[in-house]
């Protein structure tokens, strides 16, 4: 079962680096193409951070090792994230090959074709690794979370099957976040 959670992208725009800080502005904001930066990056950063926040590993990971596999378009703000309990998220860029994923607690799969992404997810299945796909809206790569980019908003799809096989526990309230998943 796939669920989709839509996040008002604009709300995440004002976030900056401060983790878990509430939205800076009310009301509708339009997507502003910031000079030099990727407009989706802050929202993606917040989303990835929140996903890690509500994911529980069999043993506490400190810091949480976040591997960005392959070339990523919206991962510019994934550095220096911190969880609410103070744990840090360390980012590491790795090649998109199963062998490179050793030691990763979470894998952000960048612009990787679905078959190759499937190889990556197969490699970490059952080993307690969170998988987030940036470029797989249909979920063919069997990542736990698939980011969806719409104009002005970022949402995600949840692959329940992948979650249940991952060896991780995801807070069920995150499932409820999915629109219509109530």
């Amino acid at each position, binding site marked *: 079962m796939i669920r989709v*959670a*839509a*996040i*008002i992208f604009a*709300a*995440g725009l004002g*976030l900056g680096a401060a983790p*878990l800080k*509430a*939205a800076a502005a*009310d009301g509708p904001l339009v997507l502003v193409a910031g000079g030099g930066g990727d407009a989706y990056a802050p929202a993606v950063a*917040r*989303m990835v951070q*929140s996903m890690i*926040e*509500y994911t529980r590993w069999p043993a506490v990971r400190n810091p949480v090792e976040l591997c960005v596999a392959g070339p990523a378009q919206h991962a510019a703000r994934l550095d220096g994230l911190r*969880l*609410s*309990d103070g744990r840090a998220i360390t980012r590491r860029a790795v090649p998109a090959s199963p062998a490179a994923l050793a030691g990763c607690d979470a894998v952000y799969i960048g612009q990787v074709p679905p078959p190759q992404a499937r190889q990556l997810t197969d490699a970490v299945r059952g080993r307690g690794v969170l998988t987030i796909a940036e470029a797989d809206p249909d979920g063919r790569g069997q990542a736990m979370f698939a980011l969806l980019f719409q104009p002005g908003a970022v949402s995600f799809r949840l692959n329940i099957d992948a979650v249940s096989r991952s060896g991780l526990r995801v*807070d069920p*309230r*995150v499932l*409820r*976040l999915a*629109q219509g998943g*109530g």
Partner: protein
Amino acid sequence: MLRAPPNQALPTLRQLLARVHLRLILFAVVLAALSLLVSGMIVIRNYAARNLELIAHTVAYTVEPAVVFDDRQAISDGILSVGAVRGVDCVEVRDPAGRVLANWKHPHADLHSRIEDWANRQIWPRPAVAPIRRNDTMIGRVEVYGNSEGILRYALSGLIIALSCLGLTVIATRILARRLQQDVIRPLDHVAEVAHAVRSDRAFEKRVPSSGIAEIDRFGRDFNALLAELQGWHAGLTSENAELARRATHDPLTGLGNRVLFEQTLADAIGDSVRSGQSFALLYFDIDLFKQVNDRHGHECGDAALIAVADRLRQSIRQADHAFRLGGDEFAVVLAPFSDRACVQQVLDRIDRAMARPWRLPTGAAASSTLSAGVAVYPDDGISPQDLLRRADADMYEHKKARLAAGPRGKNHA
């Protein structure tokens, strides 16, 4: 039975009972309704307050990931799924700086009457607040404002129930008062009726029936005992009065009517004859030589002679005739109206025959005497009592004179 109308200013027992009952029941119902209403409202409000706290915490728990993800739509959905229930007026999710991330208002919130708004403010001056935490970090808070609708509805229904109870009890009071009146006043009325009958009709034989109430029954029994005493007194008094009246009109020695009764009877007889047009006769007697008997044999023998004469007169006249002793040895008889004058002579003859029988004196000796008689007939010899009496008297003296001249026929055989 006519009775004097009761004083208008005095309330009847029934009114009194009804008033007392009404006050009592009003007091009880108002007290019960008020205390129930107030305690019910307090209990409901406490439950509602706890409910609001619970809702606030539930909303906080539900929307926590949505706040973390900063998904406002999800926050709104979360509020809607657990916070949009009855009894909640408004739910707000704020960030730590106090800015509203999402809120929900009761759909009827805009249609609130001013009373409900006022009641909301009075009953829920402060919202129930629950923090939204992620680990130890406060990431927002939930404020839940209560709705007074339920409490107002309870108060309204309580008020309606209390009012209808009041109406019912007012009716019940009337019925109760009527029954009490029947139970209490009817026995009292019996007593009053008997008292009235005794006072106005001298009905001393009446008695108060026993009633179902101990006090009134005791009162009735005492009253009856009093009545019995009164009856005894009254009977004694009546017989004494009768005796006195008899003595006033009768000669104590002979038992014949005295002069007073004679005059009365004569007047009545004249009156009757005037009306009927019939005649009647007045006979006048005295005992021949009574003075000599008295002097020679003593008053005792004189009295015996008087009693014997009276007896013989009484035996000789008819039922409708009346005999009197006017004093001394004078007797009179008023004969009933007649159509044939011969009957007067018949009576005189009977008296003569009766006098011929001797009587026994206290000394044991036998004696007899004769009577001299005079007759006056109404209206031939007079129409007034005096005329008749005078005429009869004169007639008697004429006879006596004639008899004495012929030689004394009556003798004492002493």
